[in-house]
């Protein structure tokens, strides 16, 4: 009977209940959408960060990342790649050789990070092939080709088929240089890579640096990000820490995780604000409902209804109202999330604001189950908690005063 009473009381003042429901559902919809935006952008940010060039894990000889000493290469790297491929969690391994270099054309020059890669394995570890916007990616066999960023090509004023000169320090300290044909241009959306990194065949760079069959880095892509720490632990037994450093993408760029955490803090603050607004709305509606029914509560008390039963009745009413609003909010919020998850939100007009965030300029919303349930749960609980004060007011009312109340 209490449930029936609570349900019917909600619809006693349909307009007020609908306004309250709208406030709850709209607030929750906005929250879910914002979480979807944040989660989607973060997911894309991490995925891009991993797949643009870093991979899930990287293995270097101890001290290489700190000193960038070209002599700190990975011995017997082919055998190590084979061993890494034996790990069930590993999708692919890309060996790389790296060096800082100066790129020059007749009119321009600029410093870059030179990466020598094996095209066949590199495209399995990163999305470089997808990012090719003009021309093509490196040939499987070394042909003196280079792939550079579109922005960098514009800066150098070169196009497909033209040549650039690369100057760097060879393994023995001598000046190394070569002229290479631009085979393709890429656009990853990350200026740091588009303007600061160029890719050549592994053998081409080995020859340029006079480091035949040497690599500095093994970049690993896993089948799933969730196996990151477990895999690193398993690999540490094969690659002892005294000789090798195994780093995850988080170690290599903790900034990405910090951005996500900061974003989440902002979203939690918004969640708090929305929850407070929704709570005030529900408290207001429940207070009006209680004031209007003082006499009725008095009659119920006179009939022997216990104070806790009145309390339960009001809380049930608020719970049902909030539950309806929460369900509507989840449906609308999740619907909006899926809609923009499919179509994306094009923010290319503000691309400069996203340039360094790896998220791309089209954000595909994708709210996580955790944030969806968290938002819905907090709004629902806040709705019930905010009706406690009106319920206490009704409970404290003396039946004799309530009956006289007009």
């Amino acid at each position, binding site marked *: 009977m209490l449930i029936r009473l609570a349900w*019917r009381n909600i619809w*006693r003042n349909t307009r007020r209940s609908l306004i309250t429901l709208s406030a709850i559902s709209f607030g929750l919809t906005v929250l879910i959408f914002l979480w979807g935006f944040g989660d989607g952008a973060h997911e894309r940010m991490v995925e891009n960060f991993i797949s643009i060039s870093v991979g899930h894990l990287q293995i270097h000889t101890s001290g290489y990342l700190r000193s960038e000493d070209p002599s700190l290469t990975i011995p017997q790297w082919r055998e190590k790649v084979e061993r890494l491929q034996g790990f069930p969690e590993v999708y692919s391994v890309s060996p790389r050789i790296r060096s800082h270099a100066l790129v020059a054309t007749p009119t321009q020059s600029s410093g870059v990070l030179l990466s020598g890669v094996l095209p066949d394995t590199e495209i399995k570890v990163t999305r470089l092939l997808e990012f090719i916007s003009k021309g093509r990616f490196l040939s499987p066999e070394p042909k003196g080709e280079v792939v550079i960023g579109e922005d960098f090509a514009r800066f150098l004023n070169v196009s497909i088929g033209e040549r650039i000169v690369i100057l760097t320090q060879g393994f023995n300290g001598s000046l190394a240089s070569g002229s290479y044909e631009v085979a393709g241009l890429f656009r990853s959306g990350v200026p740091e890579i588009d303007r600061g990194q160029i890719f050549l065949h592994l053998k081409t760079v080995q020859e340029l640096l006079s480091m035949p069959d040497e690599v500095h880095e093994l970049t690993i892509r896993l089948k799933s990000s969730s196996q990151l720490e477990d895999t690193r632990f398993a690999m540490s037994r094969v690659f002892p820490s005294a000789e090798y450093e195994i780093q995850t993408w988080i170690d290599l760029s903790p900034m990405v995780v910090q951005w996500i955490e900061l974003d989440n803090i902002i979203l939690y603050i918004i969640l708090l604000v929305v929850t407070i607004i929704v709570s005030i709305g529900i408290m207001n509606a429940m207070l009006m409902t209680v004031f209007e029914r003082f006499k009725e509560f008095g*009659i119920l008390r006179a009939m*022997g*209804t216990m104070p806790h039963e009145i309390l339960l009745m009001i809380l049930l009413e608020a719970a049902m109202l909030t539950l309806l609003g929460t369900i509507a909010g989840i449906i609308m919020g999740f619907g909006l999330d899926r809609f923009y998850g499919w179509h994306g939100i094009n923010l290319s007009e503000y691309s400069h604001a996203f340039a360094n965030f790896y998220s791309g300029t089209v954000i595909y919303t994708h709210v996580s189950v955790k944030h969806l349930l968290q938002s819905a749960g907090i709004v629902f609980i806040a709705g019930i908690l905010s009706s406690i004060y009106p319920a206490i007011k009704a409970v404290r009312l003396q039946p*004799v005063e309530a009956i006289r109340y007009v």
Partner: protein
Amino acid sequence: MSEKPIIMVKGLSKSYNLNNERIPALRNVSLEVKQGEFIAIAGPSGSGKSTLLHLLGGIDTPDTGQILVNLKDLTVMSEKNRAIYRRFDVGFIFQSFSLIPVLSAFENVEYSLLLKKLKEGEREVMVREALKSVGLEGLESRRPNQMSGGQQQRVAVARAMVGNPAFILADEPTANLDTRTGIDLIDLMKRVNERQGVTFIFSTHDPKIISRAGRVYYLEDGSLKDKTV
């Protein structure tokens, strides 16, 4: 009618605070009610009729005096025990608008049995019987706003009597009804009193209603002036 009183009121006084001044509502009232009586508490507005009924019903407490209902002293009961007393021993009929608007006639009557924790089957039989005895058979599913004032008060009578309380208190039950409907309601209460032996104590200031009472207590300025048999 039993000769043994079910209600014994001794030296009952009650006053209220109004602008820091104590206004007496009842002064040293003593009375007795026997099982099966049909009693009117008469008097002009502000004479203390409602206060007396509220005290008998255990929804208010006196300043001094004693109220014994079936030898249980209401004045020493805790709020919880008074709620239990109201639930099981008293039936209330208020002036008007006392039904729960979102419940049907059936559910309004059933509510009082729910408080008594009766089983569904038992409730169904008792509610139908009560509504039948007040002439509302067939109107069980109507909500208060779909019924006339007189029909609503009949539902209130059915709700008050359905759990077989020790007595029913009716605070000016005809106040918001036209004369004919008011008299019909009192006649209905009288029939229930005679057929089922339910004790009624009702307040009124209407002479036509007073004339239908078995016994009348007159209140004036909070004091009991006279009583008729």
